């Protein structure tokens, strides 16, 4: 599913790189720890987090993520939005808390890392 469709369906507000929503979202990862995202998120994934400081852009760029969604109505810091614009990393914001937002992403068919491996 394209990031633009996701943004529209879930009425997310775009805060940076509005011209880069035409990418395919391959999956999702949720975490507020930088090195956890570094270790586990995959290229083309959407990252759900509450962190708003500029380092999220560095992490997303390094991992070539599709974009970042900030939860709970949080807004990116000014420096974050600027850096994201420069690095073409879309930052979107949602009013929903993480659980609700991720549930809806899941409903849209955005898989997590191991969608096929339920706890066994």
């Amino acid at each position, binding site marked *: 599913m394209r990031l633009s469709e996701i943004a529209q369906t879930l009425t997310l507000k775009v805060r940076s790189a509005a011209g880069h929503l035409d990418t395919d979202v391959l999956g999702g990862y949720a975490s507020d720890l930088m090195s956890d995202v570094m270790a586990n998120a995959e290229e083309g994934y959407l990252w759900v987090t509450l962190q708003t400081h500029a380092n999220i852009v560095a992490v997303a760029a*390094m991992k070539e993520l599709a974009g970042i969604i900030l939860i709970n109505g949080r807004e990116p810091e000014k420096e974050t939005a600027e850096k994201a614009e420069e690095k073409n990393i879309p930052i979107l914001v949602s009013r929903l808390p993480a659980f609700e937002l991720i549930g809806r992403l899941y409903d849209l068919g955005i898989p997590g890392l191991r969608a096929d491996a339920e706890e066994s």
Partner: protein
Amino acid sequence: MIAANKNLQFTKIQELVYELKVAEVMTKNLITVAPDTRMSELRGILRDNRISGTPVVDGDRMVGIVSVEDFITWLIRGGVDCPVGQVMSRKVRTLFADEPLVHAVSKLEEHGYGRLPVLDRSKNTLLGLITKGDIIEGLLQELQIDYHEEEIHRYRASHFFEDMIADKITINFHYHIHGKKIEQGGEVASDLKRSLKRLGIHPDIVRRAAIATYEAEMNVIIYAEEGRVDVNVEPDVILIEVRDRGQGIADVARAVEPGYSTAPDWVRELGFGAGMGLQNIKNCARDFDITSTVGRGTTLKISIPTGTKEKRCA
């Protein structure tokens, strides 16, 4: 060009059917029935598992095979319920697991069978089942791996190094980390990433180097304030050295353990201090070495091969 390629692929497949062993492509998770399984149950077993036949096993010995064709014949003859053992084909052709794929191809072809049971040569026990579908899948997978290796080769032998003539080629990138706010961290890793890409190194390898550098850079910013990053790129390997004159690490082995962190609260609030950084670096590297003296500083050295098969971090 296309024709030449096609021929190449053909010889490649010919090679593969001799190289690959039956055991490598067969289906191992076997559905089997016993000789005393009722014919009335068989239909459900075949349907639920979406299979067109199954070996009949008594203890660990295979005594026959029963297929949809046997089932239909049984139906036509009246379909009176009886044990599978009375309907199954007893004369079963089999393969040994260590036979080359080409034997499977010719046996399936010769007798028009849809499937052949695969046995262990020494113990004569049933190991699996092989179908034409398994063979095609196995070959395609192998071809894809081949294709991948070719791709890596293409990247490694990329334009840049190929055009240089010297007994030894090393390209050095030097970066200085100084007085950065934690929020600004990642610039060195980002610059390095762009540079390595320009050299034509495989994107997955580049990402690996970038992840390791990022984590090391963040550690310098958080625990040492100032440091230097030296990256030497050789045709086959990327060597990364990150050196600082910070507080040093008292127990390096412990610091590398996942979850160990001395990050202060304000750093943790920004999402650092999970104690995963050094582990991430280690997972991305082939050689990994840290030397540190408390009060003097820390030096991290890692290597990342550019042609490795596992291009991603572990």
